[in-house]
């Protein structure tokens, strides 16, 4: 019996700890000035093929309604720990990324933002995500995992908690739920990082799941009893400069910040680089205030969240 209890405890501990596998970290500074080909078309193609294949699989036709079809799609796109889109990006030849190949990866692991570490650092046990480009925006591949994974969690929360709340109330509570996720196993608790960029990707994922069945032109439609995914899906419609962690600064724990500050400061001279200046000017032009920005400002003003500003490269370099 004792052995059984011990085994169960160990299994439980391992499974619990596995939650942090969601929280793969990324570093867009590392990719500054390095050319990356746009992957929008390949990513759109992969998403369309996966979704249509899920809809056409043996259970197709059994999706009674649109929500049942959404559940089929979710099973294909959202897995428990590692997300299919991120695994595909890591192993395909088609998506250009930095780093690419084992030699570059080795260098990335040794010099990315979280590389200055401390004993028993949980974040270092995980593989950092590469940077890719979608419609001129640089993002970690982890953001696409967030989009499909935590986006689904948001969607589930939203469906469960609708009740008789107003849309504004519901949205506010949904975003707070997202902040709490990021404060717990998805971020701060295990890696010492709260990422507003992750929250932006989560929220856009939620919008995507909503758009599958709702709105004037839902992304799913039925023809002769079979479900089809719209050709109009474009990942670029969801991606914004807010997904780039070199633009949308993270909030770090004190312990984590010690190492990161030094690594980030090494990029200060690059702020004068032509490519970096051009990219940041483009971001300034494209960036808008999102509901996440608004909520985080409120939380910072109320003292419920640390201000991300001191962790921004412009503050570090000044």
């Amino acid at each position, binding site marked *: 019996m004792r052995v059984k209890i011990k085994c169960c405890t160990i299994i439980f501990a391992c499974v619990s700890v596995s939650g942090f596998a969601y929280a793969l970290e990324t570093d867009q500074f590392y990719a500054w000035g390095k050319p990356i080909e746009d992957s929008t078309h*390949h990513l759109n193609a992969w998403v369309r093929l996966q979704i249509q294949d899920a809809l056409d699989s043996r259970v197709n036709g059994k999706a009674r309604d649109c929500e049942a079809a959404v559940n089929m799609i979710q099973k294909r796109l959202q897995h428990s720990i590692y997300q*299919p889109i991120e*695994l595909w990006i890591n192993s*395909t*030849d088609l998506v250009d990324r930095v780093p690419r190949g084992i030699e570059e990866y080795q260098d990335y692991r040794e010099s990315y933002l979280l590389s200055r570490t401390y004993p028993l650092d949980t974040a270092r*046990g*995980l593989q950092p995500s590469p940077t890719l480009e979608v419609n001129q925006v640089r993002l970690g591949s982890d953001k696409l995992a967030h989009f499909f994974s935590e986006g689904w969690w948001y969607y589930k929360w939203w469906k469960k908690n609708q009740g008789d709340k107003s849309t504004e109330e519901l949205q506010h509570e949904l975003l707070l739920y997202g902040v709490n996720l990021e404060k717990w196993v998805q971020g701060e608790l295990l890696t010492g990082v709260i990422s507003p960029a992750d929250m932006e990707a989560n929220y856009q994922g939620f919008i995507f799941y909503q758009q599958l069945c709702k709105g004037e032109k839902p992304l799913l439609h039925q023809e002769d009893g079979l479900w089809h995914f719209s050709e109009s899906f474009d990942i670029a419609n969801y991606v914004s400069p807010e997904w780039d962690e070199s633009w949308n600064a993270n909030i770090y724990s004190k312990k984590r910040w010690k190492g990161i500050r030094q690594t980030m400061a090494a990029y200060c001279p690059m702020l004068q680089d032509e490519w970096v200046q051009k990219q940041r000017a483009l971001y300034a032009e494209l960036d808008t205030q999102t509901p996440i920005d608004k909520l985080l400002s409120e939380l910072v003003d109320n003292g419920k969240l640390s201000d991300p500003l001191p962790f921004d490269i412009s503050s570090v370099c000044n």
Partner: protein
Amino acid sequence: MQQVQQELENVERRWYTITRLKWGYPLRWSAGIGAMLAEQPRDSSCATGCAIRGWHFMVEPGQYGIQGGVGWGRLVGETGRTKRWMHTVNWGWAVRGVVLRTWGDSYLDPDSQTLAGIEGSLSIVRVNLSVGMLRSFSSEADPDWVLVGSFGLGF
């Protein structure tokens, strides 16, 4: 669209080497080596990470015996510079039918006996935990059923 479709459809069967190093009951220290057969896109690489699933086998000599197993599993891992050795398993699970032969001063009574049963294995961030239930073929064995378990690195 066509390029992605072609990549996903153009698959091949590949063998990946799987390994583990463990401490447990009743083998005490043991080292396992085996292979997993997986179907994968021809152009994909596991150097920096991929997911595979399929049938696999493993032979595991240890301090107090040797175990052999065949089963099915899936894992997310990396081969790094090696082409086919899945040396880093970030996450994975497997279920195996196993046969175990003990010897020497094993904890079992009698020391030398043959057992067979089922083993479940879970790997998270390189750490592996395996638990199994095996039945002895020996008529002198007491008890008949043995709960085995081990903890280590690998898959």
